[in-house]
């Protein structure tokens, strides 16, 4: 856009520099300002499209998560599921291996859990049933991740495309199975609805309490694995440069396949806890698109576990709020609530940019306006 000549290098109108000393209050200040701005912009949107009072709409949105214990618990359940997949992606992302295939890996895990429930449910004691479900789900997810990893390690195929395509294969496999199982019904219903074989027992009143605890344990393990283990260190070296890693004596092929086996296995666990603790059935919608959402969560959280929890919570909160709004108002349907949550996300992500970087204007202008740099 700008005309630059060989003789005279013109400084661009603005340039971006990394912030070095961000204080905690500054970063949180930026985030809070972002949320307020998002709510204001949304206010104009809601008012202009529907004429509703934005504050009422926000109140309804809040109730999606905080209206009752049950809402809050189902929010935690969904956060656990999203966090679980995000945790699975973190080791792969740390070595800069773009595993876009979590959706498919979760589905294969879920499918195998369902297969075990269907064919072994009621035939073996429930403790061994759960163990078998767990193992085969891990294996299925791991296998689904290992195929592209092996190709990448061996022949340097593009893992982004490969893992992405594996999702659609998995979705179709699940569709074929469920279409067979549902017989002439419009949906499969719940597996073993009568015997409840392969359903998690209720703990503290909820079946998914066990799921939440499993994810909690996983979160701790992954945090330790990434930051306090030799494997974790190998991943970060590999992520910086494959050549350096090789020079340092790291077996790159082995690390890639090993890490993806783990990544896929954890996705398989996500499938397992969804089938056994939440859905008690399987369909191509079992993964709920969380396999893709988790990519955003993991990357934006900078692979840091506590931030992953925060991001997961925010996204689920927005999703719950959105569905609450579209149920409460006929004038705000699914599509307009997606606009509302989209705007909020946009501002929050935007604020992360300003937390990490600052825009510096060209010197002349800066001098005139008196050094304004946000």
């Amino acid at each position, binding site marked *: 856009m700008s005309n630059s000549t060989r003789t005279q290098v013109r400084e661009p109108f603005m340039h971006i520099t990394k912030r070095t000393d961000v204080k905690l209050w500054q970063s949180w200040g930026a985030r809070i300002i972002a949320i307020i701005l998002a709510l204001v912009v949304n206010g104009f949107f809601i008012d202009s499209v529907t004429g509703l009072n934005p504050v009422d709409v926000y109140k309804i949105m809040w109730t999606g998560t905080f209206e009752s214990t049950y*809402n809050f618990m189902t929010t935690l359940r969904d956060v656990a599921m999203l966090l679980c997949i995000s945790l699975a992606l973190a080791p792969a992302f740390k070595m800069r291996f773009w595993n876009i295939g979590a959706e498919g890996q979760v589905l294969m895990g879920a499918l195998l859990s369902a297969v075990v429930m269907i064919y072994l449910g009621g035939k073996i004691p429930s403790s061994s049933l759960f163990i078998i479900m767990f193992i085969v789900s891990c294996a299925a997810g791991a296998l689904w991740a290992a195929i592209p990893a092996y190709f990448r390690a061996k022949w340097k195929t593009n893992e982004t495309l490969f893992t992405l395509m594996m999702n659609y294969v998995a979705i179709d496999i699940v569709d074929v199975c469920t279409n067979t199982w549902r017989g002439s019904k*419009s949906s*499969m219903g719940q597996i073993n*609805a009568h015997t409840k074989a392969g359903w998690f027992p209720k703990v503290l009143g909820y079946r998914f309490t066990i799921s939440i605890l499993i994810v909690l344990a996983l979160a701790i393990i992954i945090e330790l694995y990434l930051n306090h283990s030799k494997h974790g260190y190998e991943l970060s070296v590999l992520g910086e440069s494959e050549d350096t890693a090789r020079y340092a004596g790291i077996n790159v092929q082995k690390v890639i396949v090993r890490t993806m086996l783990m990544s896929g296995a954890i996705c398989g666990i996500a499938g397992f806890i969804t089938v056994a603790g939440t859905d008690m059935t399987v369909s191509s*919608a079992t993964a709920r698109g969380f396999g893709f959402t988790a990519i955003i969560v993991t990357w934006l959280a900078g692979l840091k576990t506590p931030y992953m929890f925060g991001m997961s919570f925010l996204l689920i909160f927005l999703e719950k709020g959105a569905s609450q709004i579209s149920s409460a108002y006929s004038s705000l349907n699914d599509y307009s609530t997606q606009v509302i949550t989209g705007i909020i996300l946009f501002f929050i992500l935007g604020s992360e940019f300003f937390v990490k970087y600052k825009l510096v204007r060209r010197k002349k202008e800066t001098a005139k306006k008196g050094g304004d740099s946000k």
Partner: protein
Amino acid sequence: MKKKVLSIVLAAATACSMLAGCGSTETGDTAAAGTSAAAATSEATATADSAADASASAAASDLKVGVILIGDEAVGYDKAHIDGIETAKTACGLSDDQVIYKKNVPESVDCYDAAVELIESQGCNVVVSDSYGHESFIDQAADEYPDVQFVSMTGDFAAISGKTNFANAFDNVYESRYVSGIVAGAKIKELADAGKLTDSNYDEDGKVKVGYVGAFNYAEVVSGYTAFYLGLTSVYPDAHMYVDYTNSWFDVDAEAAMAEKFISDGCVIVGQHADSTGAPSACQAAYDKGTTVFSIGYNVDMLDVAPDAALTSASNNWAIYYEYLFNTLLAGDKIDQDWSKGYNEDAVKITDLGPNCAEGTQDLVDTAISGLKDGSLQVFDTSKFTVSADNVATTLSKSGAAVTTDDAGHVTSCKIDMSFYDYSTGTPTLVYQGDTDEAIVDGAFEESTFRSAPYFTIRIDGITELN
């Protein structure tokens, strides 16, 4: 490093305390919501209490209805429900906050979640769901909340489930499909008489081709398209109908694609049992390009999207049921566990006839409606259709209904097993035992009398399932 470990421990501790906190406050919340303490989630107590009178808690002014919809206003089927509920709400004097909607609830555990939220958070004492696949999740909630009245629209096992707080309801929409078939038949007759059909519109046997976009291949859809075909052939007998399934209740693209395929194959009429405007829009687009094709829609008037191609839509008048439901509960009475009404109570209808309908259509429609009302006309009159040996076998393999016919191919007996099976385990497993009933009574198949959900699954001659 220490800081990180600390933060994890803190996170873990917070999460644990949250869990513990939630568990202990749960019963308190339930009691506070105004429902009885027996509504707490224990399954053991639920079964023991299932005989308790469920309607008592739903009495008079504290009636609060939660409605679970598979779609929203953008989906014809759900729009029809919402319209019916809003009409009934006004008629029965309910206030706005006595009816709470949960929209876009898929046929998954989300349905169970929605039901529990409506009960626990909103204090609903009646929960209605509008889609077939919701039923097993509603059944689960009905187990756990014996004091709440549940209604599963189009569902088929409430009566045999042994729960008194669980009911099914459905309109006899096959009656309005039959009448919409008459509208289609009249149009084909007019086109054929005027010589406006081309060779591609006829199959090799010289029968006019008709297409039908179905959702799933089970009783509700089979009953519907057969009624439509019988209405059509009552006016124009030389027609052959092709049926295909989208495997979804609402899929604009798939429905449009299927309709386009029917149109390119030479179908003159495209009917539908799917909830979007995909098929009528496709018909209108083809019509605008000069193809002779007309659409019979479902649920809502399709003239908005297909002003020339839409003839009419088979539809429900849900307000009739919802008024019955609200009034009965307000009076503190028990509702029928199986409610199904048709033209005799004006619970079904066809939408306004489009401008391109054949002359004299209205008269044919009026005659048929009065025939259906006084019982002189039977939709599934066995003398009006035949079933070949092949179709008897197909019927048995696809639905389990045992059909016997006389030498001419007319059905003399059809045994319907009303039991509810779980198919998810490979072989059908009995969940709720029902009777096996003889559906052929006085020379007609009695639809929706043994239970509210349709059970006509006979594959009759003249209709080809493509999938």
